[in-house]
């Protein structure tokens, strides 16, 4: 069993690495259009955030529908840092520190949201994360932040209200966001981040903390009377999940010239799209999330004609998958059909 778990883990890493090598070969041999090449990094950070969300939904058993909000936090804090230090630090340490900062702030926000919500039972986390995802966009869109020799200036009104010196630079320009973040992300780094996220999540699942987290998911009352600190473990899993979403955000902001807190990237719809990846890949199945994210991200690009119906199809997929996988009635029917099929099969052989 122990070996089987390790083997399982290695297969997951193997799939990612194999996919990476194939893509690299396609690029090197010139078989990948530049349009497709541009999709590789986004595809990978969506896989990263799907892994993060699955940790929250599948392993912890709490629904977050504002995970893109944590991605937004990671994106903006890291972009801000990179922009400010662009001419001070060389690329490699700067990008590394950008990751540290993006991840740390996403984790901090995850922790702060978790404190009031995670000690409660019920559906509050879903609402609060949704609200958080929406609010964080509003707040960032309202922030003007600039820098000059006197230090950092901030305003909630307009860039003029910053009163910058002539040489000063606007970093965050309200709804126009941050422009000109150094383009540090690339496919290789994105894949490394994905592998590290997988490493963290899969290792966590196979540790005493991971078992405790899943125990909380399966029966929090029993977990408590088994001496498990339910709230503590919920906080831990949720914070790690937010941190990984933050890492996806760092990849995001360093892959785009003009970073804005737009709904299309960080809003409700984007968060639901990630949820679709998780549900389709299998709730609690980390490898499935990666595969589903890659396929579902690439699919609409390949089937452009269906673009108008894409969201609608996602919605139907979500409903149908949930009923198919979780409805007690459907599960019963499936079991019966399977039993009959097996019976029929054995009749055939005898």
């Amino acid at each position, binding site marked *: 069993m122990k070996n089987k778990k390790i083997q399982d883990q290695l297969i997951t890493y193997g799939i990612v690495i194999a996919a990476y090598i194939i893509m690299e070969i396609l690029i090197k041999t010139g078989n990948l259009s530049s349009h497709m090449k541009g999709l590789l990094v986004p595809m990978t950070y969506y896989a990263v955030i799907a892994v993060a969300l699955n940790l929250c*939904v599948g392993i912890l*058993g*709490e*629904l977050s*529908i504002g995970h893109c909000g944590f991605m937004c936090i990671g994106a903006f804090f890291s972009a801000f840092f990179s922009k400010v230090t662009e001419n001070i630090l060389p690329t490699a340490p700067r990008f590394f520190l950008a990751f540290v900062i993006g991840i740390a702030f996403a984790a901090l926000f995850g922790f702060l949201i978790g*404190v*009031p*919500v995670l000690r*409660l*039972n019920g*559906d*509050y986390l*879903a*609402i*609060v994360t*949704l*609200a*958080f995802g*929406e*609010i964080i966009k*509003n*707040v960032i*869109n*309202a922030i003007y932040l600039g820098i000059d020799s006197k230090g950092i200036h901030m305003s*909630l009104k307009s860039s003029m209200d910053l009163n910058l010196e002539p040489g000063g630079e606007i970093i965050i320009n309200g709804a126009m966001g941050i422009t000109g973040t150094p383009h540090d992300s690339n496919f290789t780094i994105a894949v490394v981040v994905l592998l590290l996220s997988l490493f963290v999540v899969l290792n966590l699942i196979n540790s005493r903390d991971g078992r405790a987290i899943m125990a909380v998911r399966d029966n929090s*009352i029993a977990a408590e009377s088994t001496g498990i600190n339910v709230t503590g473990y919920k906080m831990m899993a949720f914070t790690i999940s937010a941190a990984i979403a933050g890492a996806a955000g760092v990849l995001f902001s360093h892959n785009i010239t003009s970073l804005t807190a737009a709904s299309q990237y960080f809003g*409700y*719809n984007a968060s*639901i799209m990630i*949820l679709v990846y998780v*549900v389709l890949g299998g*709730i609690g199945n980390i490898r499935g999330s990666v595969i589903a994210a890659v396929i579902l991200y690439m699919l609409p690009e390949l089937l452009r004609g269906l673009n*108008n*119906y894409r*969201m*609608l199809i*996602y*919605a*139907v997929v*979500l*409903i149908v998958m*949930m*009923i198919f*996988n*979780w*409805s*007690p*009635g*459907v599960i019963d029917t499936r079991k019966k059909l399977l039993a009959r099929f097996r019976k029929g099969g054995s009749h055939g052989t005898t």
Partner: protein
Amino acid sequence: MSFLTYLINGLSLGSIYAIIALGYTMVYGIAKMLNFAHGDFIMVGCYVIFTICSTLSGNTIVGIIMAIILCTLLGITTEKVAYRPLRGAASPLAVLITAIGVSYFLENLALLIFGADIKSFSSVIKWSGLSFADGALKIQGVTIVTIAVSVVILIVLQLFIHKTKEGQAMLAVAEDRGAATLMGINVNRTITLTFAIGSALAAVAGALLCSAYPSLSPYTGAMPGIKAFVAAVLGGIGSIPGAMIGGLVLGIIEILSKTYISSQLSDAIVFGILVIVLLVKPTGILGKKIQIKV
């Protein structure tokens, strides 16, 4: 005087939240699920009225009645097709995710049919309102009607629940579904009825919402829906008077913070209140302590 105007506007917005919150709280209390799509039922109601009144230039009353009928049918169908199969599922997340799916479905269906552009909705209330103190204090017709409608709905709903057999059945199912079944109550029918009432209320709320804020898009219902949930939590989820109080309080806070603090941050303030309530008194103003059964 202007403060009074804002306060009345707050009451009006709060009344709309209250009507939506009633639907949320009833479904939550009786079916034990968070119907994420509830806010989108509002949007559906608005589009029905919009289509009948503006596109087909039909009668307003007909439009409202059609919206109520269609939303009720939508609520019943959604419950039957999407939610009922998941009753008793191993994970409580199953029905919640499905509800999100329904919400997403309705929004994107509306997007396909009506497009993303914002339609301007003509108010269903033609009355211009009252003016006091030589015009220093003007109260719009839609404001007065909204507040009046919500009061009537609250009274009727309270009478229905406490005086009729169906209402008593709802209370019983909310208290203990298993025991209610043993007492011969048809749980499925009771839950269907709850969804029907909640969805009909959503249509009414839609008509009032779009009359007060006349811009209609596929996402019209989402934010008010979420805020109404905040109102329901604030008042004490499961409690009908609580939903009313929570709605009014939230509406007033929102209008006042929009006016006196910042319109961009008013949503953040509203949700800040949710977080504070969850920290200080998760059961809300009128909610009773939930005893976990071990």
